[in-house]
């Protein structure tokens, strides 16, 4: 196998950890001395367009309450971070993270000429493209392309789901989707598939059939690898029995293993709250809050919280004004959460949205989401963001 030197060094440190260090010594590694560069990103996609204004609430802003006489969250119900900013009442764990210095809130994130179709806007976020570009690869996928030529297993990026998102599809390399390591192992280990692979004469050609066999072989070997890794140090912490809770539990077990995964991707939804927003957002936030609280607690007790960055986003925010059905319609700019023990800047990272300066009833963005990607790619994942995003974006300072 041909490694580029840089990749060899990174993968090499993991390989050393997993193969050359006796098991009893590994216990020491779990302490303060996690190998540098072993940073992990967890992307949490809030599908459907989460209402950012009822997530991070401008509790001093009359314009907010005026636009949302029924839907606005009153100051005394919000979880106050300071005089100006409150969190949705279901996000108690996030308030704790804030107090702890492990939460960053970035406001007014978006992109020029925003699209209000869920699918299209998600496409733009996942591909990391401009709103008048059509790009068939995702930003994490292109990270894999840049990082993994020569990798034999597509496990550097894992999505916890049954199908793979555009975000994780590169030109050459693609991430892998699975809901449960055991189920993935079961499906891909069918005898017939193994026989088909064994039967195939391995020709590393350029034909589509070679591509199919390569993908199949990678899937089967990754399934083995992931399953084995997931059993090395399975977490025994308690997680809520929700979808997100179980997904984060799977992720934690993998993080505690020696797996080479750098990016995990997981979704929660639907936040498309045109009607009865109150109940729906409350239910989803409760799930998110409890799952992340358990995840953070688990990471901390295993001394890995400083190496893990969890970042949330949604394809768009919602309109400032409530609608007539107890909900909100599709909007534009939105906030993002960063959760990590390794943040360089914490708390509310920039000013709340300016409700006096709207574009036809919608928030204006002043941070391009691609700046966030650039920051994470460069400063957290240690790669060349410009190559992956096709352009240089100013970095932010949160990591």
């Amino acid at each position, binding site marked *: 196998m041909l490694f580029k030197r840089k990749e060899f060094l990174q993968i090499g440190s993991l390989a050393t950890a997993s193969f050359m260090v006796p098991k009893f010594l590994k216990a020491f590694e779990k302490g303060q001395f996690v190998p540098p560069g072993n940073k992990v990103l967890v992307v949490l996609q809030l599908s459907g367009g989460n209402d950012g204004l009822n997530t991070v609430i401008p509790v001093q802003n009359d314009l907010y309450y005026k636009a949302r006489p029924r839907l606005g969250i009153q100051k005394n119900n919000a979880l106050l971070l300071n005089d100006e900013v409150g969190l949705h009442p279901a996000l108690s764990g996030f308030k704790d993270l804030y107090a702890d210095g492990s939460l960053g809130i970035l406001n007014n994130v978006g992109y020029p000429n925003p699209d209000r179709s869920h699918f299209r806007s998600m496409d733009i976020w996942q591909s990391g493209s401009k709103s008048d570009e059509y790009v068939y690869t995702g930003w994490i996928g292109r990270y894999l392309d840049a990082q993994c030529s020569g990798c034999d297993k597509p496990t550097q990026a894992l999505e916890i789901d049954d199908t793979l998102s555009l975000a994780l*599809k590169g030109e050459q390399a693609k991430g892998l989707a699975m809901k449960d390591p055991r189920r993935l192992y079961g499906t*891909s280990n069918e005898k017939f598939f193994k026989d088909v692979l064994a*039967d195939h004469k391995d020709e590393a050609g350029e034909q589509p059939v070679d591509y199919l066999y390569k993908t199949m072989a990678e899937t089967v070997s990754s399934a083995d690898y992931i399953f084995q890794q997931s059993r090395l140090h399975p977490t025994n912490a308690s997680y809520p029995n929700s*979808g997100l809770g179980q997904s984060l539990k799977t992720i934690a077990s993998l993080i505690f293993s020696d797996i080479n995964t750098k990016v995990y991707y997981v979704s929660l939804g639907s936040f498309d709250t045109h009607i009865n927003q109150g109940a729906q957002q409350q239910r989803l936030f409760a799930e998110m809050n409890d799952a992340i609280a358990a995840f953070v607690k688990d990471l901390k007790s295993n001394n890995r919280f400083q190496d893990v960055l969890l970042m949330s986003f949604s394809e768009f925010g919602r309109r400032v004004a409530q609608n007539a059905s107890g909900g909100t319609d599709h909007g534009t700019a939105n906030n993002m959460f960063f959760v990590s023990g390794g943040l360089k800047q914490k708390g509310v990272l920039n000013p709340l949205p300016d409700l006096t300066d709207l574009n036809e009833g919608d928030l204006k963005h002043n941070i391009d989401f691609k700046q966030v990607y650039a920051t994470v790619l460069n400063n957290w994942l240690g790669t060349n963001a410009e190559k992956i995003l096709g352009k240089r974006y100013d970095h932010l300072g949160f990591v």
Partner: protein
Amino acid sequence: MVVTNQLKNQHLLWRAGFGPMAEDLGQLATASQKSYFQALTKASKKQPQYLDLADNYIKGLMMGIDEIGRTQKKELNDEEKKKLRQSSRESIKSLNLAWLNEMIHSEAQLREKMSLFWHGHFASRNLNILYQQQLLDGIRRNALGNFGEMLKEVSKSAAMINFLNNNQNKKDHPNENFAREVMELFTMGRGNYTENDVKEAARAFTGWGANVKGEFVFRKYVHDEGEKKILGKSGQFDGDDVLNILLEQKATANYVTKKIFRYFVNEQVDEEKVNWLASRFYQSNYDIQALMQDIFTSDWFYHEKNIGAKIKSPIELIVGIRRMIPMQLQNEDVQLLVQRLLGQILFYPPNVAGWPGGKNWIDSSSLMFRLRLPQLIHDDEAINLSPKSDDDQQMGMKEDAKNMEKGNKGKMNANKIVRQQIMADINWQPFLEKFAKVPKEKLTTEISKTLLQTASGPSKQLLEGQADKSNRESFIKTVTIALMATPEYQLC
């Protein structure tokens, strides 16, 4: 690889249609490609039937608008809009299945295959069933006709006008979306026009709109009458003028021909062939049938390097299986789930650029599901996978919400496993009959040759090793299902 007459015929049927039908198998070895192409052309010349799947609520609503039209009511109220969305969503599912059935059963295979190509070329995500079925009808009627006429009809369709915001394109407040996409994706392709051409063309399209019923309307009072300068020409152009200017550009013939070459012949473009085809396409004033004839009657189309070189799209895969082994599905809707899991849902292209195709269809999950699919059809096993949700389709009315209403407040969403089964009653008879006279020792080879387009495939030992040898019928069935579960079967 020996390119047999049978292989060439299968190649034609896969590319100019959705693969051979069980009934066709007898003639595959002997008939000529020419006779097959003539038959396809003849069948495809017939006018397609309008697929009308709008439910009674929508039809009633539209009739109501006709009557109220006289009293100046032009818009629906919120309640009507909401109900329209809900019934549209259901009706689009029916339209999806109805068209899928045409692809499976229609003799006009070439027309339906071309229509699927144009459905991706003129991609429109639109949640209104009336607009969608109008657009589909326009595409199916013109699929083998004149490209210019189809371009004009599509450009004036309510589906496209709404999808690309041309209702909002007004004098002094131009919306450039349609003007940009018509140049970038429908005609010339990037690099052949300037930003200024887009701006000027947008002015020419001002006033093009569609009413609630999906009829084209020209709103003279918002049309910009001024002079525009587009691609070197100046005049008081309107939308039709712009489309004519775009059709005058050789770049348009080149762009469309290259896309057709990649879709019907090979992802690896042969520039020389494309140039030859494109110049003839241009000279014929965009006669699509003539272009397809140039392709499918050429020698090079049947060259080894073009056979088995294409990854089937999910629709080609599903339709192809259903043609080869005819079946009744107890629950036709399960095909929508399969489309979602494989990444191609008719009427829901990812964006206006359509489905990227080729290797983009394949990732570890989609490939493993493709390989499991024949077994799932054969064995009634549960699918056990959940597709991603699509909030544009669900409009906040997610299945979750419905479950909540029913009081099922326990475990919901992300980890909910959809326990759907395919439950197909396969009619094996026509398929079995075709192999009735094949000696037992040759069966596996013959079935392989019928199902696979690739130079090599899984070995006889592998296929027979796992086959059910208890009787001849079971043997044929299990070998067939196994072959369909191989990487090679994903290619055509």
